């Protein structure tokens, strides 16, 4: 009982600590907002998906503009702007990635998302998406995952090294399917996300597969079957899966 009371108190204290991150002090872009985001990706992201955060900080107007637009406009408050499923999904992947990038600047460009930093980053500090206030954690789990497309996990990026590669272009509704398909293949072609050790008789794969197992299993009979849809070489069916510890270092260039 005492334990429960303590836990409730802790939960209240922690919940009371949630802070709101105000929208950046920038006007939403006059032209297509996605163009501002495209410029950020093109200028500050390299082919490995790593970000020049200090360069971005010095020249952050485009990112601030895009994030300010995300704060104001989203499928929930302006559904007319996002008529199709792909419009919504592309918006959310871009918005999530931009918010994560922006939060790294807000956090003072850390080197690593350690346990406390993760707590503030994903849960405590709230942002707004289309006028709706939420944490990044809630955004991913209660909004984006509900769209029932497991391949989003190869597009969503929280700016850690363990994340899938951040592409140098935004996701766009017209090409979304091909883009996330490409990112899924890219993801499983990288040794850091998938490798087979025949000596040990084991397959090692990213912790993402573990965390979001139910999303993948809703679309395939097993994780291995899901992996084999995208892996350049099929991984053996009889090797047990081991999950690679997530690399929480920030993806600095």
């Amino acid at each position, binding site marked *: 009982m005492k334990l429960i009371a303590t836990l409730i108190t802790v939960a209240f204290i922690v919940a009371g600590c949630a802070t709101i991150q105000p929208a950046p002090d920038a006007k939403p872009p006059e032209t297509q907002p996605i163009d501002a985001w495209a410029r950020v990706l093109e200028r500050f992201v390299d082919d490995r998906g790593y970000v020049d955060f200090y360069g971005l900080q010095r020249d952050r107007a485009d990112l601030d503009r895009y994030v300010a637009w995300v704060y104001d406009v989203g499928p929930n408050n302006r559904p007319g702007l996002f008529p199709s499923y792909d419009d919504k999904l592309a918006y959310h992947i871009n918005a999530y990635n931009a918010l994560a990038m922006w939060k790294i600047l807000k956090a*003072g460009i850390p080197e690593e998302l350690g346990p406390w930093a993760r707590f503030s980053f994903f849960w405590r500090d709230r942002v707004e998406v289309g006028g709706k206030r939420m944490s990044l954690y809630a955004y991913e789990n209660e909004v984006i995952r509900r769209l029932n497309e497991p391949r989003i996990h190869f597009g969503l990026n929280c700016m850690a090294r363990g994340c899938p590669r951040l592409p140098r272009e935004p996701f766009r509704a017209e090409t979304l399917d091909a883009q996330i398909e490409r990112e899924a293949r890219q993801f499983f072609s990288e040794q850091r996300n998938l490798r087979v050790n025949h000596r040990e008789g084991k397959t090692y794969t990213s912790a993402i597969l573990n965390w979001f197992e139910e999303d993948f299993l809703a679309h395939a009979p097993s994780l291995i079957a899901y992996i084999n849809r995208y892996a350049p070489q099929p991984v053996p069916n009889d090797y047990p899966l081991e999950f690679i510890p997530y690399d929480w270092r920030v993806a*600095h260039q």
Partner: protein
Amino acid sequence: MDYLTAEEVRAWQPYPLAPDGVTPRKRARRRMELTGQWAPWQALGRRMAIGCVALEITQRCNLDCTYCYLSESSEALKDIPIEEVFRRVDMIFEHYGAGTGVQVTGGDPTLRKRDELLQIVRYIKSKDMRASLFTNGIKATRSLLEALCEAGLEDVAFHVDLTQRRKGYNTEAELNAVRQAYIERARGLPLSVFFNTTAYPGNFHELPALVRFFIANCDVVRLCSFQLGADTGRGVQRQRVTVSAETVLAAIQEGAQAKLNFGAASAGHSACNRYAYGIVCNGRVYDFYGDPAFVHKMLAATAHLKFDRADKRRAVATMIDFLLRNPRLLAGFASRAAKAAWSGRRDLLAAKGKVGKLSFFVHNFMDACQLDRERAEACSFMVMTPQGPMSMCVHNAKRDDYLLVPAMLKKEHKVMFFNPVTGRLQADKPDKLAVTVTRKNARGRAGKTSQTSAEHISK
């Protein structure tokens, strides 16, 4: 000798930014001309705008060197906020531009939080400047060095010598075990490894053997630097007596068993810095600067070239490209190289063509009470104070003026002041900062006496 008076030291100010249109290099050249140091060997104002700039990211240290330049208040002070460190990096860039060497130092910089240390190095790198870590090595683990390399660190300078009074080591020869361990930690990493040694009466007789140790390890060690102990800071030792720049140069040459030309190329005042460059083959040292006239010609002709020290291949390619465009210099270079190869043919054969290189550097800091005006004005080694760069020697003579001051920070549209004594941010500017040196935080001279206090009235 024209020494600065106490009044003049007090009044000495950090450099403001150069007026528009005056490039950092032009400004350096002007300083060299005014102090009589503009000569063919001079790299400052020709190839570089400054020798290097010290960025002190903490005042704390886990050793207590007998010649320490830190202030007696140092250990009682909290680390300046990272925003203030970044602001100083920005200032270094504004003053001297891309390519500037930034010494990340302290105190011992590894005592700063690991994440912050990495952030600082990455920030320097993001400004296209060269980050070097100056540490006693105690906390510079292999994993930290790897992470630092990944963040963009280019050099590591280990300070190891008897003045540090490391327990269990009574001679420099014994300390070679520590040096060797540090060499192994850095081996294979994309870092230039330097060793700093204070030259003072207590180890002077061991310098030649120490030089031989560095020569034997020149596969990893790139530079051995000797600083003359000076009467400055909190350190308890004062006397130089037998040790002077000239005697240290002689000791180095005795250790190298070679005549080295310490006057062919250098940066700053000749009484402050002496530099020589050796090619090592089969354990024998050959003077790379053996023909000063040719070195000067090359220095003048290549002043405009930018060598990427982080990328050796690119640096070599730049040089080859330059030589191919300048056939006369190429011929001069080739004939000298051929001559050197011929005279060293036996060693070349024995070493199967393998050659290493090792630089020798002697830095002659000034005593705080005897600051030569000309040298201070020609200084090539700046420390970044909150208000701008300042000659390290002058700064050492009045450190508390720059330590016991609040740092102004902008936090979420508000101006706040960081109090280095309490380590807290406050809304109003504290007007009087004082530290109490207790038995716990006393180091150097303060450790020998009872409680003292330092205070500063902010302007």
